[in-house]
């Protein structure tokens, strides 16, 4: 670089205060957490060994009987999740219409939205805690908890779908002289039905995980089997439950993903659904982000 070059003024390096500030705050929070948490950190080093010990116990004693029980318990969890999701959808679809900005006045939809947000803030576990004294340790408690827990999210998603539809067919229906219900049936529903169905299925996937978790509190299902297995030191049962949960979740995710893709894209070879924008489609086809039971 020794050949003569036109000399120019070099600019100043900008200060990165926001970035450094955030990192400092996070570091401070971490230190505050580490110092304050009541944990014997030496136990952390033992944790992998402890975990390994538990796993060994679990898988040494498993039998075919245990797996049968586990599969039945899994079915229970799935049944609870399914019913809860369906019930929630029955409410969510009309609620979605009630909260769609293109169908109802602004203030009304805003109010509905806040109710949905509030409902979403309450974890299903808390809901089921409240339902157990009332309904007992029954599967119905689980079903209701899941239903209540899903209404908020599903209604919000439904209303967004309805807001996103093309005005065209609605205008066309109006120009043919269709009344409100007919317009709903022929212009709004055909466009939103595939997306809503996809969301319901997506929520069902998540709810299976939720249902497994609720089982830990005693409403039945595979979570309950895991908890009982650990509590009563029936390690074989616990191990079977664990394996069934992992494998079952992975399978359900794959199956549900395939079905959802089919719902959204139509039969093979029919090309893209013209009603859904590609970017939106990509978002719809992505599955749940993680095992979020809440």
């Amino acid at each position, binding site marked *: 670089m020794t050949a003569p070059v036109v000399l120019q003024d070099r600019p100043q390096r900008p200060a990165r205060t926001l970035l450094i500030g955030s990192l400092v705050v996070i570091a401070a929070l971490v230190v505050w957490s580490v110092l304050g948490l009541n944990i014997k950190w030496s136990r952390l080093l033992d944790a992998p060994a402890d975990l390994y010990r538990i796993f060994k116990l679990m898988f040494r004693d498993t039998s075919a009987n245990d797996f049968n029980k586990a599969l039945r318990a899994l079915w229970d969890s799935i049944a609870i999740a399914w019913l809860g999701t369906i019930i929630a959808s029955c409410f969510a679809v009309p609620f979605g219409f009630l909260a769609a900005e293109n169908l109802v006045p602004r203030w009304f939809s805003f109010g509905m939205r806040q109710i949905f947000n509030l409902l979403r803030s309450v974890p299903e576990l808390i809901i089921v805690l409240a339902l157990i004294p*009332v309904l007992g340790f029954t599967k119905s408690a689980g079903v209701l908890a899941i239903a209540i827990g899903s209404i908020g999210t599903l209604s919000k998603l439904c209303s967004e779908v309805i807001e996103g539809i093309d005005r065209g067919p609605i205008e066309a229906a109006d120009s043919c002289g269709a009344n409100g219900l007919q317009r709903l049936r022929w212009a709004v529903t055909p466009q939103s039905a595939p997306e809503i169905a996809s969301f319901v299925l997506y929520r069902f996937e998540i709810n299976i995980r939720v249902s497994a978790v609720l089982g830990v509190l005693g409403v039945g299902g595979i979570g309950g089997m895991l908890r009982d297995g650990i509590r009563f030191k029936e390690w074989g049962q616990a191990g079977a439950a664990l394996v069934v949960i992992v494998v079952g979740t992975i399978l359900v995710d794959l199956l549900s993903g395939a079905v959802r893709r089919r719902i959204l894209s139509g039969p093979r070879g029919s090309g893209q659904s013209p009603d859904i924008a590609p970017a939106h489609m990509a978002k719809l086809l*992505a599955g749940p982000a993680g095992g979020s039971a*809440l």
Partner: protein
Amino acid sequence: MSDASLSSAVVRQGRPRRPPPSAFGIGVGVVVIVLTILTTWNWKYGTGFSPAEVLRKLRNRNPVVSAIAHTEFSQVFSPRSRNAFVETLRLAVLGSVSGIVVALPLALWSTRFGAPNRLVLIVVRAVCNVIRAFPDILWAVLFVAAVGIGALPGLLALFLFSIAVVTKLTADTLDGIDMGPIEAAHASGARHSQMLRTAVVPQILPAYASYSLYAFELNLRASVVLGLVGAGGIGQRIEFFRNQPAWEKVWGLVVMFVIVVFIVDRLSTLLRRRLV
């Protein structure tokens, strides 16, 4: 005006047969209905859910619902509850940060261009799949069984849960990045890690930060519930009062918790919108 009936002077064409209704659609419809009936009915494989009975039970006087009217917020002043709440926050912070930090390299290694070799790719993807298959509570139950009750199992559970959430979201973003800078890095003779650091990471940093905030949000909710299984935090206080039973206090704690979650939720949504 001539007779403009539709049938006159139109070229006759073969009319297509009406296609049979989509097999897929019918299949799905049938499955939905059958599943719903199967799961409602009161038999060995069903739930025995009866809306009438549920409504009846709900209408009965029961301590839980009546306690709502007498919700007690006295626990705000209790040092034990306060400490439990602070513990919840600490668990959420530490669990999130540790998981988030580990999630970035894992997400990078789960992509074809980010993994240094095929073995790493396969192993990392398998590990992530297994971690993702567990809801966080189940990790908590497992860890409680392994290391005993307290805050440690909760921390470990949140650590793994953060990894599950952030790796999946980050990996999805990585699938859509511009490959050009990667080629440029290779062409200049950079090592694999340097390539990742200079050509890939800058592209996903805002998205990664956004997902991290989202994970923190989820962890805050989860850490409350962890206490219910003995893994630390405000959940243990809720469980304590539930067993007494002192439902007024339980509702008080729940309401306070819901308010905090709601606030954090709104704040986080605001921050995340500014990031992306």
